[in-house]
């Protein structure tokens, strides 16, 4: 289906070759995962397949690529539209129509499919992706997961032979991600569709894929079955790390396989779940809060929420897409309209805090860290933050340096990796020394390494520095690693609250892999499992 023969790609003005002299083949009906560190070139390889690179983006390409027997060096992406469907990283930017149904039909209209055939295809694909109830809804009002499904539907409706997806589950909650992936799995099995997708959260996809292409970042890549690659890869999901820790001969790819293969772990008793300590000073107090969506006249996003966040703890806010997590975080910085109730940060109403007063009480890192950045270079951003917060010159930069390996100071914030951008936004916020830090979905687009760094940073902020951290996230593995306490929102209401192990283990969909693999232990992270196993020896 896809044939790369001696392909090299380099972007102009760049020192690094993305791939060099690479040859591989993907067969019809295969489900292939593209993985690699952030910035390794996953998106580039994906877009090479349908010719968007280099036809649309520029870049110097040598070698030949053919898709379904057609050469991409001769044909432009548009001429491959009938055999290749692609779903970009940010579907919201790529929608053409207002209404779900029209957006799906648009792909068929450009191909000139007859209207009666079109009707049938649209109906089929609406059913396939469970979009029928949403067909006449306005796309801009849909949740991230629903938008992702619309984008997949619009790519699938043309009956392509090959579907390319760039991080399709990064914005989705665990349940929605599972839905999307099982739909893809079904399409591969039932219709013989070939799927290539890139993804950071391996724990979600690895059980579904046949083969993995690992992009090393030095121009080479490794292609093998999922098990082969997982045996030695430096990037691995918790389940694989757990299997490695247990010295298992075969590497399991799903929880089910793990349970079949794993050695028996005898425990005298379950590890006790430690209740979170509630001694710190209350930094965020929310009482009887009801709030509306910022940009919609829909009903309440939050209703009658009560919570306290104390100094020194990391609290994770979880729940499905559209449960009101972002609205709650926005209320904490006074950005969302409050209908009823009261929000106080260190005793002040955040909506009343002006200018530097706000950031001295609470720092907010939005979903897209870029939303906080608007300078032309890293150093400009840092200097601006020093001036805004009235701190010594260079303070922000030294915070940034203490957090992580920082990129070239003159690079544009848009050009650095997701992890570095998040670090920059966080440093800007931290330079004002707010006692409370709020992060909205910080791990989107982060690889495992960047996530580890983030976990260390957050633990330090809460532990040594004694601040309170509130994060909203879909990433259960992150929550398992970093959170002391979990709050669970559903449909705007707070439905569960407790220590991380308690809350996560109580919900099958939100349980981390270690908890699913070893349900009798109450362990939630690989570290914890290793610690206990070592202690037993």
């Amino acid at each position: 289906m896809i044939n790369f023969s001696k392909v090299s790609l380099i972007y102009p003005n760049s020192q690094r070759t993305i791939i060099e002299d690479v040859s591989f083949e993907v067969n019809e009906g295969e489900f292939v995962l593209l993985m690699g560190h952030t910035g390794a070139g996953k998106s580039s390889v994906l877009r090479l397949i349908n010719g968007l690179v280099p036809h649309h983006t520029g870049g110097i390409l040598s070698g030949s690529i053919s898709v379904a027997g057609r050469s991409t060096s001769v044909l432009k992406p548009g001429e491959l539209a009938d055999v290749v469907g692609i779903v970009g990283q940010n579907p919201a930017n790529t929608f053409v129509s207002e209404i779900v149904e029209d957006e799906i039909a648009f792909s068929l209209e450009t191909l000139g499919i007859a209207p009666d055939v079109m009707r049938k295809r649209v109906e089929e694909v609406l059913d396939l992706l469970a979009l029928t109830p949403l067909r006449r809804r306005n796309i801009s009002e849909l949740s991230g997961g629903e938008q992702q499904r619309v984008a997949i539907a619009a790519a699938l409706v043309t009956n392509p032979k090959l579907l390319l997806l760039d991080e399709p589950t990064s914005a989705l909650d665990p349940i929605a991600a599972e839905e999307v992936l099982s739909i893809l799995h079904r399409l591969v099995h039932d219709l013989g569709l070939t799927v290539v997708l890139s993804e950071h959260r391996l724990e979600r996809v690895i059980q579904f894929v046949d083969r993995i292409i690992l992009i090393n970042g030095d121009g080479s890549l490794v292609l093998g079955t999922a098990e082969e690659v997982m045996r030695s890869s430096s990037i691995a999901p918790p389940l694989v790390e757990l299997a490695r820790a247990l010295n298992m001969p075969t590497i399991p790819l799903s929880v089910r396989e793990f349970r079949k293969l794993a050695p028996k772990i005898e425990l005298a008793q379950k590890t006790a779940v430690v209740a979170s300590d509630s001694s710190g000073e209350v930094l965020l107090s929310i009482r009887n809060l009801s709030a509306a969506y910022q940009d919609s006249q829909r009903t309440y996003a939050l209703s009658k929420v009560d919570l306290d966040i104390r100094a020194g703890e990391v609290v994770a806010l979880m729940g499905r897409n559209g449960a009101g997590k972002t609205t709650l975080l926005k209320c904490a910085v006074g950005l969302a309209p409050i209908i009823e109730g009261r929000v106080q940060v260190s005793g002040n109403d955040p909506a009343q805090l002006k200018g530097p007063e706000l950031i001295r009480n609470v720092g907010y890192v939005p979903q897209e860290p870029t939303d906080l950045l608007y300078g032309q270079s890293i150093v400009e951003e840092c200097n601006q933050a020093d001036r805004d917060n009235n701190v010594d010159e260079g303070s922000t930069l030294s915070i940034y340096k203490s957090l992580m390996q920082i990129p070239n100071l003159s690079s544009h914030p848009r050009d650095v990796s997701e992890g570095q951008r998040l670090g920059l936004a966080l440093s800007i916020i931290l330079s004002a020394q707010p006692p409370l830090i709020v992060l909205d979905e910080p791990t989107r687009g982060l690889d495992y390494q960047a996530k580890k760094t983030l976990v260390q940073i957050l633990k330090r902020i809460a532990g040594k520095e004694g601040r309170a951290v509130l994060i909203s996230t879909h990433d259960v593995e992150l929550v398992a690693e970093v959170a002391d306490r979990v709050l669970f929102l559903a449909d705007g209401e707070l439905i569960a609250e407790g220590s991380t192990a308690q809350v996560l283990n109580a919900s099958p969909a939100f349980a981390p892999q270690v908890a699913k693999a070893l349900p009798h232990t109450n362990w939630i992270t690989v570290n914890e499992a290793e610690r206990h196993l070592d202690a037993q020896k």
Partner: protein
Amino acid sequence: MKTAHAQSSGFHPLFWWVWAVLSSVVVLIMDKSQISLAAIAGTLTLAARFKGSSYWRTSFKWILRLALIAFTFRMLIGFLIGVPMPGTVIFTLPQIQLPDFLVGIRLGGQVTEQRLQATFNEATLLAALILIFALANSLSNPHSLLKVLPRRFYGIGLASVIATSVAPQAARSITRVRIAKRLRGQSGAGLKSWRRVAMPVLEDSLERSIDLAASLESRGYGYFPETTRYRAPIWQLRDSLGLSGPAYLLASFLLLSSISSLLFAALFFFLMLTPAVAK
């Protein structure tokens, strides 16, 4: 269940553009401040009537500010620079002597009632035209033009979409940057900070446009000679009804030109509002 059509402002994708052209032609050929003021009042009323949550709706309030700036600027220029105009002097500004080859042009000097009248006329006309097109721009989904323009020409479709999305996207980016400034604890909003706003706004627009172009390209837009329609936007009765007001005005102006301009302005205000009734 709402119909798909009713979800947008309820009209054909080209409706507001036709409405804008008709209204602006009337404003232009009448060239009277009463008419322009009526047009401004009309657009403001319609903007209030068709409020919505989509991101492109928010551009109107920004262009409203722009129109206000344009108006003020035009008035100032009118006071300061121009060809001397005889008439009743209201007040006199200090005049700067210009070299001989710029004969007939003055800087400062007497401001006459006639001059004030003429400047006010032009400034309101300018503001009215800006607002009429800003309203059309903010009430139609910028992407909907793709549906009605000829499909064979990839470039035309893409260019028109990018052109009509500039204002709405800029409005969205301005909101984003303002929130960022608040979250970073900045309070000033001087000229210097406006320069800092412009860059990210341009970058945002560029990024969105590139994403959209990539999406159109990989979906084969403009590559296949025969295109078909799933549900073509139909010019409906309500579209014609909505346009009947400004169209009637244009016709009546061409037929009878001796109507008093105050009466015409009142008429204009109400007839501009026909879209509100037709919906």
